[in-house]
Each structure stands twice: as structure tokens, then as C-alpha cells.
């Protein structure tokens, strides 16, 4: 398990846990980022991250990306 900010570009990951306040968590959940969900890291350079979740591109700031804990999953493609 590692913070999203440490993932590599192109990696597929599964959300394990969202640390941080419940407001932020609700917000992410409404956009589809919730534990158990798989997503693709479209771009990540040790900081801001672009995710592909349910076909949408979601940009997360550095602080946010550090608070989402994920595990890599084997790419299905």
C-alpha cells in the first residue's frame, strides 16, 4: 500500500483508503474515487496526479494525492 503520489505514470491501482477529513472523502466519493475502486494513473510526477476513473480525468493536487492510499493491480490490458 502506498500513497497515490508515489505511483508511476500508466500504473493501474486500486484505492485502499482515503485519509483526510470526511468532507474531502465525500467529495471524492461523489466523483467515483472510493475504496475498492480501480483506476489508472494517467500522469504522475511525484506530485499532482491525473487519474482515469470511470472514463473521466480527475486532477488531484499534491496534498490530495498523498492522502489516497492505493495498491497496484496487475494490468488487465
Amino acid at each position, binding site marked *: 500500500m502506498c500513497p497515490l503520489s508515489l505511483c508511476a505514470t500508466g500504473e493501474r491501482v486500486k484505492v485502499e483508503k482515503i485519509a*483526510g477529513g*470526511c*468532507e*474531502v472523502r*465525500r*467529495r*471524492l*466519493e*461523489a*466523483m*467515483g474515487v*472510493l*475504496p*475498492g*475502486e480501480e483506476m489508472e494513473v*494517467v*500522469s504522475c*510526477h511525484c*506530485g*499532482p496526479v*491525473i487519474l*482515469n*476513473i*470511470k*472514463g*473521466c*480525468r*480527475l*486532477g*488531484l*493536487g*499534491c*496534498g*490530495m494525492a498523498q*492522502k489516497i492510499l492505493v495498491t497496484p493491480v496487475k494490468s488487465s490490458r
Partner: protein
Amino acid sequence: MKKNDVVIALAGNPNSGKTTIFNALTGSRQRVGNWPGVTVERKEGKTDLDGRQVTVVDLPGIYSLTANSLDERVARDFIVQDRPCLIAVVLDASNLERNLYLSLQLMELKAAPLVLVFNMIDEVEEKGMSIDLEGLSELLGIPIVATAAKKNRGIQQLKKVLAEQVTLGAAAPPAIPFRYRENTEFAIERLIQRLGEDPSLSQSSPPRWLAIKLLEDDREYLARLEKSPLRDSILEDLGVLKKETEKGIGYDLETALVEERYGFINGLVKEFVKKSWGLEDRLSLSDKIDKVLANRLMGLPIFFFLLWLIFKLTFDVGGFFVHYIDQLFTALGNQAAALIQALNGPSWLASLVEDGIIGGVGSVMVFVPIIFFLYLAISLLEESGYMARGAFVMDKIMHAMGLHGKSFIPMVVGFGCNVPGIMAARTLENPKDRIITILITPLMSCAARLPIYVLFAGAFFAKHQGTVIFGIYLLGIVLAMLMARIFKSVFFKGEPAPLIMELPPYRLPSAKSLLLSAWHRCFIFVQKAGTVIFLAVVAVWCLASLPLGVEYASQESIVGRVGSIFAPLLEPIGFGFWQAAVALIFGILAKEIVVGTLGTLYGAGEETLAGAIASQFTPVSALAFMVLSLVYIPCAATIGAVRKETNSWYWAIFTVAYTLVLGWLLAFLIYQGGNFLFP
């Protein structure tokens, strides 16, 4: 909006096309753009459904019924409290997995009958997807209409369905075919029973919705319990129920509820949406563009490059026309004056027309081509999808400066006009971030200030006009960031909210929509020139001609005397003559008036105006004047917007005070420093 009007609300995720549909239904021209957060307040319009006038309300986008920012609260409160007769939920049909979440919540809320509008159906087709609309509609028990609002497709059908639903009236919405898992349902049922014991609780929302929200720990709904006499015992039961259910599920209930909703939606999408391979092409093109534009290292230089490009375009292309329009106005002025003289009209009338109207309004109007191209470039930024990337790329720097990535958007919108820029700050979730952004947005050079720069830079730095003006724009950005840093550490300590922002796919805007949008904004500029600026200029002309018998625009006239009172304040910054003071004072009404006033007082179109200015200013004092015009006191409309959006006179007055002091100090530094360096 009257009490028994039929009101249809447009709700949906940001950027799903609500405003485009609103415009198509009502014939309005509300702003559309390819980034989340274009619409920040509710807008009403009328449309005709089968001969019946109904009110349509366009709302800011929301992802769920839990509101985080002010614009989201506007939308949520309208749906929950104002109870529209019908909600048209607009969805980006190419992305149902996410868009259906809000629809599902609205079905659970049962605030009003729903119509689902599957917009962007053109993109669905392009991607080779197909959606079984009938099957889905039947299963959900809700009418579904497919539209491509941008291409005006499906709007008639939508009107027909809306008309049908409106005539049906408020039949009880159908039961939704969605159940949570067994132990969750058990908890919900138990809670509904308990809530039923206090009938006042279920007045404002259906008991099932209330129960679900309480199980989710939603603060706003928990607050409703406060007033109930049964509060303590219900809370106790709620705690027990939650604990038991969570034991059964294995993790926290709130997440489980969200997850189950998504589970249901996934099932729907699997069953009713057919995708074909290779459909991600479009998005991956977006990703490729993002590799460059949203790159950590390249992002910033590219932003400045784009900015520079905008100016290049604006000046090289727009500037080309200015010269001709100016000649036109000068000729017009001469002709009009000659005509009045030939007809033995009074000489004051000739002066009013030539000095006042042509000299004043004309000197502002000559900049219309430049402003048109500026708006065109800003529309391009807004429609292409770059705005959201800008917010994303700038987040880190903005953080360092005490701002938020999303502050970028109000700043760029502010280049067009500060007022919508200040409104755009509504999308910032954290009130502190929002107020700082509002306070610094007036430092963005708006289109109304551009004529001042063009006039002065043209008169003194003709060879480097573009560079000088670009420099002033950059100065505005730098000052905004520095001031934000200061405000942050003085008034608003604390962490900014983290950035979470959807990045919509890049879309190539059509030339037609760009031109229309630029034309529309330009039209407003011209309209302003014809009204506010016209009146101000006539006022200046009158005051410059009174008291009777005084030489026009001399120091003995009323404006001359008033200006002379303030002129000494401007002495240390290089332009201690009364004309400058008068222009700056009237400029507080609207920044275009600065040039308009100078034009009236020096009684000439732009070319001779430039000559008059060249004789009064030096290059250094001209620079000081430009910087002062950028910073000192924002225009009346902007001050009003600051007051309205911060809901306090305190911040409005503070903005006036700090910009005045900052502007004067900068002008002082430039003038004195410049004279010291280049004596």
C-alpha cells in the same frame, strides 16, 4: 418567479451541458465553457411548452447532493428547498458511470419528478457506443431524452417530453428499482420506524432519504434532529444500528452506501450500454495533449507562452484595425463640427459633439478591435478545456503563494472583466481561499484597462508596445500573488483546501461559437461605451465648460478646479496636473472612462490625443500612470461585486484602500526610481 409558476430545474454534473440546453430552451445567451464551474449562480429563463409559459432554472453543476462550495450550495438548496415542479437531470451520456450517481441520489430524494437528459449523444455515437434508452427508461420508470445540445439536436423532443411531464403534474415519483444490501435495508427500515415517531421530522424530506442521510452521518441532517424531542433516543438507536450493520459489512457504512449505489449503476451500464473497442481514442488524444500542457515542468512556461501569444494576436491583428477606426472617428468629428457650423448651430454644440462625444466616446471605441480579439482569445481558452488544466498546473505555485489551484480560473476570467472573475471564485470550497482570491482578482488587467495601456504605450514605447503591455499584465499577476501571500499570512492562516478537479476532454470549439461569444462580449463593451461612458463623458464635458464663459477645459472650469485639488497628490508620482487627476477620479466609475476623459479634455481622437499626452508625460511618468491605472481602486462594479460576494462592506473598503496605497507606492517607486536611473 411567482408562487404557482411551473418551474423546471436543470441539474447535473458540471460540464454536462446544462447551460447549453438552457440557452437552447430559453433563447438566452448564458456563458458556456469547457470547464467545471462556468455557471456559479442560478439563472432563470422562460420557455414555451405547448403554449404554456414555464420557467427554466439553470443551476451550477453538482456531483452529489452534499455541497462543498458556494456554487454547489446554490444548486443543492434550490433542488431541496425551492422544490421545482420538475427536475431535468442533464447527463454527459458518454460517461454514465459517473453521471448516473447524481441521478440516483435525486431518485432517492424524490423531491420532484425527473426527466433524464442524455446530452452529448454525438460524442456517444462518435465513440461507437450505443445506449438502450428505452430499456433503461423502462427499468427506472423515468423518461429519457437524448440530445446533442451544442448541435441543437433533440431539443424539440426534450420540449415535448417536458411538456408531457408538466401536464402530468406531481404524480408520486415511481419506486426506484434499487435496494441496498439486506442488512443495510434492515437498518434503514428500523430507522424509518423510529423517525416516524416524530412526524415533524419527515415533513421536509421523505423518511427513507432522511434515514439514509443519517446513516451516512450527514452533518446537515443530523442537525435537523437537534430540534426533535426524541433526539437522544434516536441518536442512540442510530449509533447501535450503525455499529451492528458495520459489523455485518466489515467496514464503514458511509462508504458501503456509496459503493452500493455505484454497484447498481455499474450494473445498469453493463446492461444498457454497448461499448466497442478503441473508444478511448478521443480521451487518449486529450491525454497526449496533457502530457505537454499539464506537465509539471512545461506547464508553467506554456501558460506564459499562451498568454504572450494572446497578446501578440490581440495587438498585431487587432491593432491593425485601430488606426483605421481612429481615422474614421476623427473624420466623423470634423465633419460633424463643420456641419453644425455650416448650419449656424451654436458653437457649444459643435464642441459637445467634437470634444465630448467623438473625442470621449470615440477614443474608447477605437479600441474595440483589440478588445474583440482579446475576447476571442479568452473564449478559445475557455472553450478548449485549458482552464481546468491551468488550475491543475498552477496548483503548486498557487499553494506557495497562499492561493488555491482553482484561484487561477477567477484570475484568467478577470482578464476579460473583473466582475465575473470575482463571481468565479465561488467554486473554491474553503471560504478563506475564496476571500483571498476575491481580494486579488481586481489586480488582473481587465479589458476596460487595456485602452489606457495601448494609448500610453503607443505614445511612448511605440516600438515595444506589445512587450510593455504584456509586462503590465504580468505585473498584475505578480502583484496578485504577492498580495495573496501577504493576506494569507496576516488574515487567513491555515491550509488551503486540497485540489480536486475534473479535467474535461479537450474540445475543438467551432469558429462560429467563438466568434459569437467574442462578438457578444464586445457588444456589451460597445453598449457600455454608448451608455455609462457616454454619460460620464458628457458630464466631464459639461463640467469642463462651466461656469459659463470659461475657456473650455481650462483650469478655471469646474473639473479644472476639482482636479487641481487632487493634483498635488499625483505630483510625486509624475503627473501632477489636473487632467490626470480628473481622469483617474472619473475612472473609478468604469476604467474606460480614464481614456474617455482624457479624450474629452484634450478634445481629440486617439492620434492627436497621443500627441497631447506625449507633451504632458515623460516615458517614465507614462509608465507610472499605466501602473497606477492597473492597481488603484477597482471600478465601481468590481467594488460592488467584492461587497456582494464577501457579503461585507469591510472587505470592499479594504480592497479600495489597499489597491490605492499599493498603486500609489508603485507609481512613486517607478517615477522616482526611473528618474534616478535615467536622469
